[in-house]
C-alpha cells in the first residue's frame, strides 16, 4: 500500500513540475545598430525574455567598456562610446548560459538632420559651394522620406525578430523524433554487438 502512495506522490510531483514549466534554455541574442546606439534583445528558446540578465560590452582587447541589464522585455540599449569600431557583447544568465556576440560598428552613421545641416556633402556628391535655399528644401524632403523609410525598416526588423523567435521554438514533434533516433542508435549498437558476439548474448 505504501508503494502506491509513493507512486501517487511521484506523479503528483511530476505533474506539478510539468504544469509550471516552459521550454527554454538556449539564449538568443539579437543586436543591431541604430544611429549611434546599439539595441538588442535577449530571449530563451521558447521566446520568453531573458529578464534582468547581465550585459557586458567589451572592446576587442577584453577591456570592459560598459555594463547593462536587460529590462522586463529582455531588451537593452546603449550608446556607442567614441573611438570604438568593434565590440564584443557578452550576455550571461548564470549557470554557464553565456552568449558572446561580436559587432562591427558603422562609424559613418548619419544623425537626423545631418543632411540638412551639412553645408557640403561628401563622397560622390562633393560640393564646393554652399547649399542654396532651394536645395535646402530638397534635402528637407529627403530627410522626411528617409525617416519614413527608417520607420518601415524598424517594423520589418521586428517582424524578422518575431519569425526568428518562431524558428527557435521547440516542438513536440522534434522531441519525439529525437527519442526515436536515440532508440534507433541503441538498436544499431545491439545488432553490432550481437553480430560480433552471438554466443555471449544468447546465454
Amino acid at each position, binding site marked *: 500500500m505504501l508503494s502506491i502512495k509513493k507512486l501517487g506522490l511521484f506523479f503528483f510531483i511530476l505533474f506539478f513540475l510539468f504544469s509550471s*514549466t516552459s521550454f527554454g534554455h538556449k539564449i538568443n541574442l539579437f543586436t543591431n545598430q541604430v544611429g549611434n546606439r546599439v539595441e538588442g534583445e535577449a530571449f530563451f528558446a521558447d521566446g520568453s525574455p531573458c529578464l534582468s540578465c547581465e550585459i557586458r560590452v567589451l572592446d576587442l582587447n577584453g577591456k570592459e567598456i560598459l555594463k547593462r541589464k536587460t529590462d522586463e522585455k529582455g531588451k537593452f540599449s546603449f550608446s556607442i562610446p567614441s573611438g570604438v569600431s568593434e565590440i564584443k557583447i557578452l550576455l550571461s544568465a548564470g549557470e554557464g548560459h553565456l552568449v558572446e556576440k561580436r559587432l562591427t560598428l558603422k562609424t559613418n552613421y548619419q544623425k537626423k538632420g545631418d543632411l540638412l545641416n551639412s553645408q557640403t556633402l561628401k563622397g560622390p556628391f562633393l560640393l564646393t559651394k554652399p547649399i542654396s535655399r532651394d536645395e535646402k528644401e530638397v534635402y528637407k524632403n529627403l530627410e522626411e522620406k528617409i525617416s519614413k523609410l527608417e520607420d518601415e525598416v524598424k517594423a520589418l526588423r521586428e517582424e524578422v525578430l518575431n519569425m526568428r523567435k518562431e524558428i527557435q521554438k521547440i516542438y513536440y514533434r522534434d522531441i519525439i523524433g529525437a527519442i526515436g533516433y536515440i532508440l534507433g542508435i541503441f538498436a544499431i549498437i545491439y545488432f553490432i554487438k550481437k553480430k560480433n558476439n552471438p554466443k555471449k548474448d544468447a546465454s
Partner: protein
Amino acid sequence: MHISEGILPAPILIAGWGAIGVFLFWSLRKVSGDKLPRLAILSSFFFLVSFIHIPIGPASVHLTLNGLLGLLLGLDIFPAIFTALFFQALFFQYGGFTVLGVNTLVMALPPFLLVSLLRNFLKNESKIFKIMVFLIGGFSMLFSGLLMALILWIANPKFYVLSSAFIGTYLPLSIVEGIITALVVSYLKKIKKEELICCQ
C-alpha cells in the same frame, strides 16, 4: 544545465572528449546486448526530463535525474547521457558538439563515482538504503553543478564567480532530485528488484 559553445578553451574541450571517449569505449565493450534496450529507454528518459524546466531565479533550471540514471545504469550512464546530449545539441542547439565531451562528463561522472563508491551501502536491506539513494540522487545533481562551476572557473576565473544564486538554485533542485530518485528506486525495488543492478 550545460555549458554553451564558445566559452571553454580548446585544451579543456579536448580533455573532455578524451575522457568521455575512454568511458564510452569501456562501457560499450562491457555492456551486454540484453542490457541495451534498457539503456536506450533510460537515455530517452534523460533526454525528455531535460526539457522540463522550472523557473528559479533569472535562468530556468531543469531536473536531470542523473543520480537515478547512475543507480540504474552504473557505468552505462556514459553512453546513455552522451546520446541524449548529442541529440539535444543536434536538434535544439543545447550545448554544442565541441563541448559535448565536457557536458557529458559533467552530468555522468558524479553519479557514476558516487554509485561506485557507495556500492557497499546500497547492498543491505536496512533503512540506510533509502537515505543512501536519496543522498546519491541529491548529491549527483549538486556535484554536477559544482563540477560545471569548477570547469567554468578554470576556463575563465574572472568571469565566473560562484555566486549565492548558485546555492539558491541548486540546493532546492538537489533535494527535489533526491526525493524523486528515492521514490522511484524504492518503488522499483518492490516491484522489480532484479532491475536494480546497483542494489543487490
